[in-house]
């Protein structure tokens, strides 16, 4: 299955899932289904990352792997909708598939748009969160403060929820498919950006709280300046959240990441 068809299948299935999940996550009384289903959202998130990361591959093998993944997602969503068959269908999800196959929208968003770059940055931040959290010996006081249960807690729920918000915006842009469609893509990018930032901010909170007495004043001052810059740039597009910090002009996301790394180096 080529990238375009796989992506169309992905969003058609996400549409079927969301159509049910919008009601179930709010109204279902059982423990299993009440609230957002993080495990299901991770499956959608990682499937999307897989499709983006392998978009340049067109071998028979890669096409078969995409087809297998989409077939399993199809089964998963069918099982979900069967369990919740009482939830009415509000969306025409076949239309979503056709739009991605037939219109220019696919190329505009999933080949040319910087949305893809932000997904890649997000993917790297997930890895950073996973690796750094595993490498930090978090003391009892900090664990208690942040309700951090154990060292295996490597999935930051807030980031997953932000990615789900991004998918919802992409779906809305496909559903309406009008002149404003790209505005929803802008909003999707902002949620992905926010999710990436959350990973680094949470790392900073965990580490800084633990060792605030030993972090040198230069790094503390850098974080303070970053916070103020972030405030000054509220309301601007994510591409404009760029400024000179020290001797580098970078996006605020990069500044947070690099200052965090500096703090970690400073510790050793």
């Amino acid at each position, binding site marked *: 299955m080529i990238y375009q068809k796989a992506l169309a299948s992905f969003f058609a299935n996400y549409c079927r899932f969301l159509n049910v999940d919008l009601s179930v996550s709010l109204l279902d009384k059982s*423990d*299993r*289904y*009440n*609230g*957002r*289903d*993080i*495990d*299901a959202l*991770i*499956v959608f998130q*990682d*499937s999307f*990352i*897989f499709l983006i*990361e*392998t978009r340049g591959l067109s071998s028979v093998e890669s096409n078969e*792997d995409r087809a*297998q*993944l989409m077939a*399993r*997602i199809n*089964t*998963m969503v069918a*099982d*979900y909708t*069967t*369990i919740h068959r009482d939830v009415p269908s509000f969306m025409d999800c076949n239309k979503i598939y056709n739009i991605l196959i037939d219109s220019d929208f696919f190329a505009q968003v999933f080949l040319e748009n910087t949305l893809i770059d932000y997904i890649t940055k997000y*993917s*790297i931040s*997930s*890895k950073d969160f*996973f*690796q750094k*959290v595993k490498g930090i010996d978090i003391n009892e006081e900090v664990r208690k403060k*942040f*309700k*951090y*249960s*154990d060292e*295996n*807690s*490597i*999935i*930051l*729920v*807030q980031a997953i*929820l*932000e990615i789900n*918000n991004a998918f919802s915006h992409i779906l809305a842009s496909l559903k309406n498919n009008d002149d404003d469609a790209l505005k929803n893509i802008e909003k999707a990018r902002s*949620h992905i950006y*926010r999710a990436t930032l*959350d990973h680094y*901010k*949470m790392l900073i*909170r965990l580490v800084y709280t633990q060792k605030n007495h030993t972090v040198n004043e230069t790094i503390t001052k850098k974080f303070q300046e970053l916070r103020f810059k972030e405030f000054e740039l509220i309301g601007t597009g994510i591409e404009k959240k760029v400024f000179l910090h020290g001797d580098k002009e970078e996006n605020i996301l990069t500044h947070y990441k690099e200052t965090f790394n500096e703090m970690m180096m400073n510790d050793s």
Partner: protein
Amino acid sequence: MQAQRTSIHKRSYFNAPHLNTGSVSGSQYNNHKIKDNNPFDKSLIQVDDLLTKLFNKYNINK
């Protein structure tokens, strides 16, 4: 670098509602209530296992 994706069988979650993001209102979530006899959970585990395999096969660093 070896690709890393933590499978559904091993991962756990960190919820930080105090993190000031737009997600706070949606931070109620469920996890670790997976039941093998539930058809949705069974198919969810199957997709998750396939993803772990594919991430390793294509060396996707996440």
